[in-house]
């Protein structure tokens, strides 16, 4: 995370939060990659957060998965992430920083839509079972919406390449 990405300057050295985030992002992406095609190989993914306004881990996953696809790495599916949460007793999609700090609850979810597989799930805050169910379903809906945008972004790149060639 860049030092200027948050209100109080953050040291550029990885904090404990950053280390945990790296771990969960890695574990969210891992199931999508055919790692068995890459024995004795490391695939490094670097994410830099330039400005944080809530939902950084979700945006990181969505972007990193696209970057992997762009790199031509064989994948089972794209991974897309989106969070839902509770702000003032209402379940809402994609909390921003000020809503998150109100302290309802935040449920980030990462999904491989074609396989209906959740590859990241975290939560903090307080939710009843019904609220949790609602939040997960809402987050999944958000994921599916961003998934279509992800696919468009990938297609758009190759369409523009095609145009140049023509």
């Amino acid at each position, binding site marked *: 995370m860049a030092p200027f990405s948050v209100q*109080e300057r953050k040291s550029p050295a990885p904090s*404990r*939060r950053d*280390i*945990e985030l*790296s*771990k*969960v992002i*890695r*574990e969210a992406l*891992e*199931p999508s990659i055919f790692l068995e095609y890459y024995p004795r190989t490391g695939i490094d993914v670097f994410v830099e957060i330039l400005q944080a306004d809530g939902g950084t881990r979700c945006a990181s996953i969505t972007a990193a998965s696209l970057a992997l696809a762009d790199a031509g790495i064989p994948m089972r599916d794209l991974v897309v992430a989106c969070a839902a949460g509770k702000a003032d007793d209402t379940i809402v999609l994609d909390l921003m920083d000020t809503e998150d700090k109100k302290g309802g*609850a935040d*449920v980030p979810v990462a999904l*491989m839509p074609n*396989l*209906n*597989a*959740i*590859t*990241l*799930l*975290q*939560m*903090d*805050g*307080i*939710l*009843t*079972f019904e609220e*949790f*169910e609602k939040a*997960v*379903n809402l987050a*999944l809906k958000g994921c599916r919406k961003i998934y279509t945008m992800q696919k468009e972004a990938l297609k758009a790149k190759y369409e523009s390449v095609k145009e140049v060639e023509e």
Partner: protein
Amino acid sequence: MSSIIVRVKQKQIMDLIAEGKRLDGRGLKDYREIKVEQGLIERAEGSARVLLGKTEIMAGTKIEIGKPFLDTPNEGVLTVNAELVPLASPTFEAGPPKEDSIELARVVDRGIRESKAIDLKKLCIKPGKKVFVIFVDVYVLNHDGNLIDASALAALAALLNTKMLNYEIEEDEVKIKPGYTPLHVRKHPIAITFAKINDKLIVDPWLEEEQTMDARLTMTIDDDENVCAIQKGGSGYFTPKQVLEAAKTAMEKADEIRKKLKW
């Protein structure tokens, strides 16, 4: 080293789970025996040792007077730290904390913090200047799987056992008075961890099951059947149905453990 043994056993573990059985004879939703002892370390403000089967955790609390964070001037500070000591497992090494111990500490921390078990506002001495800082240090003494649940129990048991310093403010100075009062713990968050093996969910995985599992899911449940923290780990995935099933089971299991420990 142990992974070779596990590779031989993995198939057996998976086949048994498909039949609804486990290698150590437990049912899929059974916990190992839980033992909690409190107040073993006299130098600590609070301490507890938890045995979950052969997994063994010692947690201790220390309280100091320090400065609050800038964004929460009228709240005390709670920090949880976890140490995976080399004697606990051949895979643990000495040195600065790695991501596994950081994740463990942060998941335990999230359960206590989000359930609002400790009223941080009550730990404020002078807003913006002086607050109590509670350090919870979790030491893993033996690793036989499911460190998260055992550590969460140990941290909570240590907090329940913690004595607070008495103090008064005299001419802007904090004066420590003799005697102690117990730390007020409002909630009892219980972490319940699932492992996904052979597309089935089991609770409280022990070491060899952890080495076999595709993914793990921890849900921390408070006294009122609310979910207060979740963490998925491992490089596998869960279906939405499995997640909701896990939440239901976690609520039942947390209730069961809370009753057993009389918390």
